[in-house]
């Protein structure tokens, strides 16, 4: 598993734990009311479980498991995963976006912060699509790579 997938999947696991914790607090509060402010956690609960857990896990696993490129003789090279740096941008943008949206939904949160958060999440998705697009390829297809490592075309081997 590439390092980037490790970071994404572990971050997703942490969001899972946090999301379940908030969910458990709300469910318990529904059974035996102890603090009405617990309900303020609802949008954060949804945000971290959908984007932090489910979406981020899917991205991390996709980056790990989708077909890789054969890059010269160095088949173990990290270049097999394609535009790795772009997916690091995805990782940073996605997590910054989730945190911004989560903070904005907290009591007295800012609409502007939510807007910035959504922009970051959109940027994360766009960078991921750009990075992963070429790796969604037929079985046996190879990505041709020029001498500086830029992909130039896809061919069937």
């Amino acid at each position: 598993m590439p390092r980037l997938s490790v970071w994404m999947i572990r971050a997703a696991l942490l969001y899972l734990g946090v999301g379940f914790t908030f969910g458990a607090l709300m469910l318990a509060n529904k059974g035996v009311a102890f603090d009405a402010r617990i309900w303020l956690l609802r949008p954060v609960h949804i945000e971290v479980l959908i984007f932090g857990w489910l979406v981020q896990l899917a991205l991390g696993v996709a980056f790990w498991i989708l077909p890789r490129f054969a890059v010269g003789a160095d088949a173990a090279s990290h270049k097999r995963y394609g535009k790795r740096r772009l997916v690091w941008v995805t990782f940073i943008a996605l997590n910054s976006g989730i945190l911004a949206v989560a903070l904005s939904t907290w009591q007295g949160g800012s609409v502007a912060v939510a807007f910035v958060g959504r922009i970051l999440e959109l940027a994360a998705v766009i960078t991921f699509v750009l990075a992963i697009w070429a790796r969604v390829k037929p079985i046996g297809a190879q990505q041709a790579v020029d001498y500086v490592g830029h992909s130039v075309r896809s061919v069937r081997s």
Partner: protein
Amino acid sequence: MPLLARFYIKTGLGYFVAALAIALLLAAQPILQLPSGIHSLSPVYMHLLTIGWITQLIFGIAYWMFPKFSKEAPRGRLWLGWAVYLLLNSGLLLRAIAEPLTMLLADSGMGGLLVVSAILQLAAGWGFVINTWSRVKER
């Protein structure tokens, strides 16, 4: 596929059917003039779908396919995997019963069961995180 992964996935499939059946019931309520209390199943529907089906499917696939923990224990602590399965499903089933009753009957006395359900699911979530963490690693 290991036995525990099969349990996760097949149980998840069962929740998938149950969730969509509840969705159908919710949609049919105004058409068939069913009791409006059926809407108390709305949060149950959402959680059977997202936790019972989607998350449980992920738990099963991850338990099966993530990198091996070690040669001796390829899938980590087996007992913890089973504990997560039992905690998650007992918590979810308890919720499915107690939540609508609590919403419909304020004095149903089921509130305490929701607290128990919350604790069971919380333990399941963090149990999965703990058991899976070490298997998420570079080769």
